[in-house]
């Protein structure tokens, strides 16, 4: 009798698995996301290992070999100052990815904090923050980014050269306009959690408001934040490239895919690959971030936590 009951019991209970394992299993099923993840990993590896992979110094000019086509020495030829295009592409991955990650880190964290404060305190705080978020979300992003970067384009930060200042400035500008999405997201989560019992319990245990927000609410909002951060990485890559392409972003000689594309425009018909490749890198990274974000969204679906 006991065995029979145990058997019935076993059939009725779903096997317990660790959350991460379930997420990974779901993510793996999303083929394109997996491909995206592999591509991103490759780009990240290239970016990290740039000094060892790049055949030349990306800043080294060779004025005797300007605008050269592909050769065994320079696989992708050289640019208008005789710098090795392949090496610049590799270093550009470094800059573009770093900008994307730092911007996302800053904007998502700020956004999460602002959203948590907005949702947790409610009342006029929430009202004011939401008005600001609403307004900023309706503002057309690109003209603003262009204006602010153009205004700051002559600024040189202490201890940095002008072109490296431009990298820092572009990070700040992109962060300034990128926090609204995650603020709104986290606010939503916090609002729905605020009424729940564990919040009451935490308060009864004497936790302060800030502690409750940081210890309980933000971890609960982690899954949507991760998804939104991944998707934001893709957007930031494109925005940075657009600004650099138009000449208001990262300034040469620091290589980014955007400003390389700008330089390659002139020779588009004679050496099209010099324009095709940097643009394709932008496209591929952004696409991969989008794929991975989509895969993560499916994998982290809250329905899992049944």
């Amino acid at each position, binding site marked *: 009798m006991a065995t029979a009951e145990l058997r019935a019991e076993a059939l009725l209970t779903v096997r317990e698995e660790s959350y991460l394992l379930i997420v990974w299993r779901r993510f793996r099923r999303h083929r*394109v996301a997996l491909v995206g993840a592999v591509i991103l990993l490759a780009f990240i590896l290239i970016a990290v290992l740039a000094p060892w992979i790049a055949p030349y110094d990306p800043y080294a000019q060779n004025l005797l070999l300007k605008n050269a086509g592909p050769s065994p020495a320079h696989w992708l030829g050289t640019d208008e100052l005789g710098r090795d295009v392949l090496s610049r592409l590799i270093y550009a991955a470094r800059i573009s990815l770093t900008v994307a990650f730092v911007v996302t880190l800053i904007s998502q964290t700020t956004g999460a904090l602002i959203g948590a404060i907005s949702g947790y305190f409610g009342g006029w705080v929430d009202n004011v923050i939401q008005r600001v978020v609403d*307004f900023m979300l*309706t*503002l*057309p*992003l*690109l*003209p*603003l980014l*262009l*204006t*602010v970067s*153009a*205004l*700051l384009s*002559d*600024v040189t930060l202490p201890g940095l050269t002008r072109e490296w200042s431009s990298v820092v400035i572009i990070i700040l500008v992109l962060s300034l306009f990128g926090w609204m999405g995650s603020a709104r997201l986290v606010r939503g989560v916090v609002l729905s959690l605020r009424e729940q019992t564990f919040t009451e319990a935490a308060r009864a245990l004497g936790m302060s408001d800030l502690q409750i927000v940081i210890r309980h609410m933000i971890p609960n909002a982690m899954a949507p934040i991760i998804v939104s951060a991944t998707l934001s990485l*893709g957007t930031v890559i*494109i925005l940075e*490239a*657009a600004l650099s*392409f*138009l*000449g*208001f972003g990262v300034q040469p000689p620091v290589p980014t895919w955007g400003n390389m*594309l700008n330089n390659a*425009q002139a020779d*588009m*018909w004679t050496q*099209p690959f010099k*324009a*095709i490749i940097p*643009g*394709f890198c*932008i*496209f591929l990274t*952004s*696409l991969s*971030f*989008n*794929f991975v974000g*989509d895969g993560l969204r499916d994998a982290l679906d809250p329905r899992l936590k049944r």
Partner: protein
Amino acid sequence: MINYLIRRLFQMMVVILLSSMAIYAIMNLAPGGPLSGINLGADRKSRLSPEEIRRIEEFLGLHRPLHWRYIVWLLGEDWLDEVGLKSLQRTSCREIPTECTRGVIRFDFGDSWRLAAGQKVIDLIWFRLPNTLLLMTSATLLSLLVAIPIGIYSAVRQYSLLDYAATTFAFFGTAMPVFWFGLMMIFIFSGPRSPWHQVLGLPYLPTGNNYSLRPPQPGSLLYVLGATPGSPLDRAVHLILPTIVLSLLYMAGWSRYTRSSMLEVLRQDYVRTARAKGLVERVVIMKHALRNALIPIVTILTLEIPGIFSGAVLTETIFNYKGMGRLYYDALQADDWPVVMALLFITALLVVFANLLADILYTIVDPRIRLE
């Protein structure tokens, strides 16, 4: 309704006023002030002396405190002597009466500094506006024509081959850098120089400007159509590539909106009721479901109008299309701040009015919503 509109108009005025302050402050508080770039790139001979710069500042009224500059920018300066603030007027205002009656409130954004020095900014904008409206309209129409049917199909046949294709297309569209896509389009459709034209026989399209300046090249689409330079047909053909490039992002986004909105609606009880009533599937989808699915779509589309304007900056720049977007880029390049401020201000107006329009449209498409 009337009450709502009055309250709403008041709110809009406040928002516009605040944005104008923000715009003015940002532009004038930039490190070094608005004239900071004036000597950049100038050689020793053409370099301006501090005395000359002071004269320019007096002429432009930059010697006044920031808040007065802002007020004058907004309201003009003809009223200053009436309230006993004659000292704040510029000399030019005292000499030339028309110089006094300016200000944003009269739709006068001052004169361009660099791009078309001495011309009124507003004239530059009026000249460019029709081109931008044309491009925005054609791109919006193309996006809608592609996105809505794709979105509906994807929702109705979820997980079908075409749905997967549409999903992939949407991913590509969102991830595509507009400027690179534009360059590739130019590369592909630029006729004799393009291998795509030579080998695959893809059409030879105009890749820049709003209309032809010279008779069309043999072999180009313009030549085949026999379009005379400057004719409506000529202008239409010039719109083809910018329209496609500007549309891509919106096609991708809006087909997703339509799909998810439609999927949401198809789950609703009233769709089941419509089927249970004995309606054929076509009527269930195109009447009962679509009508509801359009409610959020209409709002989103309206709110994206200012965004299309901003997307046009990149597209117009790449195709050298003489619209407001290109003007914006040129003004930024040339540090022509009055033009930049005017365009930003107009964008802010556009945002505010798009918001109002969205609210009003919402009440029209959704009987459950009443404005109060």
